[in-house]
């Protein structure tokens, strides 16, 4: 009995780990100890290292062969999705070789990116000079919008009571209603 439980637990762990949004090859290169906070002060000291960061897109710029995303960093949850979007340690810049449509990769969308630290760049930001760590994207995951209108579970109707869905409060806060 005890063994089954352990097995189940291991299965669950394996499942969660396998859920990472980026490919295994890229994840193997990632040094997860290199958090945004660790690198931000001195990006030059970590050149060539691969980090896994995420956040909310602030601005998308398209050049002929490169797309530049300015991202407001947030911590990642177990699924590597940005969480606590209102708290951020700062911003960073992602260079992606190729075209990302600015209509899709637009302001407000959440991404998780694995990329190589390429240095820093100082740019004006609301009257100050802001120093951005710059990473070259190896893989970017764009998270699906959390749009209440898309999921009828979330429809508010007095019949369901104040919490939306009869099964109650915590579920609609879950980011993947289709898991259920």
């Amino acid at each position, binding site marked *: 009995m005890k063994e089954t439980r352990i097995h189940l637990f291991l299965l669950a762990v394996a499942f969660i780990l396998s859920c990472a949004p980026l490919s295994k090859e890229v994840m193997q290169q990632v040094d997860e100890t290199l958090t945004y906070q660790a690198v931000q002060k001195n990006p030059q000291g970590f050149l060539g290292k691969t980090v896994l960061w995420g956040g*909310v897109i*602030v601005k998308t*710029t*398209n*050049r*002929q062969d490169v797309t530049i995303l300015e991202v*407001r960093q947030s911590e990642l949850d177990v699924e590597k999705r940005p969480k606590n*979007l*209102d708290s951020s340690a700062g911003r960073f810049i992602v260079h992606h070789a190729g*075209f990302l*449509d*600015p*209509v*899709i990769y637009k*302001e*407000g969308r959440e991404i998780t990116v694995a990329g190589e630290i390429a240095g820093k760049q100082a740019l004006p930001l609301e009257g100050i000079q802001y120093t951005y760590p710059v990473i070259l994207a190896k893989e970017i995951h*764009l998270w*699906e*919008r*959390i*749009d*209440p*209108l*898309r999921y*009828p579970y*979330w*429809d*508010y*109707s007095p019949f369901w009571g104040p919490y*939306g869905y009869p099964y109650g409060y915590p579920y*609609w*806060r879950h*980011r993947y209603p289709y898991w259920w």
Partner: protein
Amino acid sequence: MRLFILIILAVFLAACTQGIPQESLKMADPNLTFQMLIKNPEQYRGKNILAGGQILGTSTREGETWIEVLQKPLDWETKPKDTDESFGRFLIRFEGFADPAIYTPGKLITVLGEVLGKKVQPLRNMDYAYPVLTPRDHYLWRPETGGGPIFHFGIGVGTVIH
């Protein structure tokens, strides 16, 4: 009797199908995908393709109207899916006037069109090579509002920054 019911059902189904009618769908080249088209629009000039997506903008010129579309995969009824998947953008060139107040940004459109070639025009700070289609048939999807309750409970999980 059973056959009769079946026929009625078939007629009913056929009648309520939205999107591009079957006769037009037959014209589409079954081997041509949008992914192939966008890589080299000139190569497929004259072929018919079924494509759809979300309207990004409409501009009227003298005698013609250009609609810019963000391509999206289509579902079983040829309706563009609500997804982030896209292989790029394309242009539809309408002969005459297509009202920009009807073909508004955000609406979904499906088109069976003949490949006219490509058109390079600026997109932000770069040049983008758009495949251009001349519509043989098209369908503008009604925006989805109906069905659910009018009252929506806005849960602020997704953040929007202005």
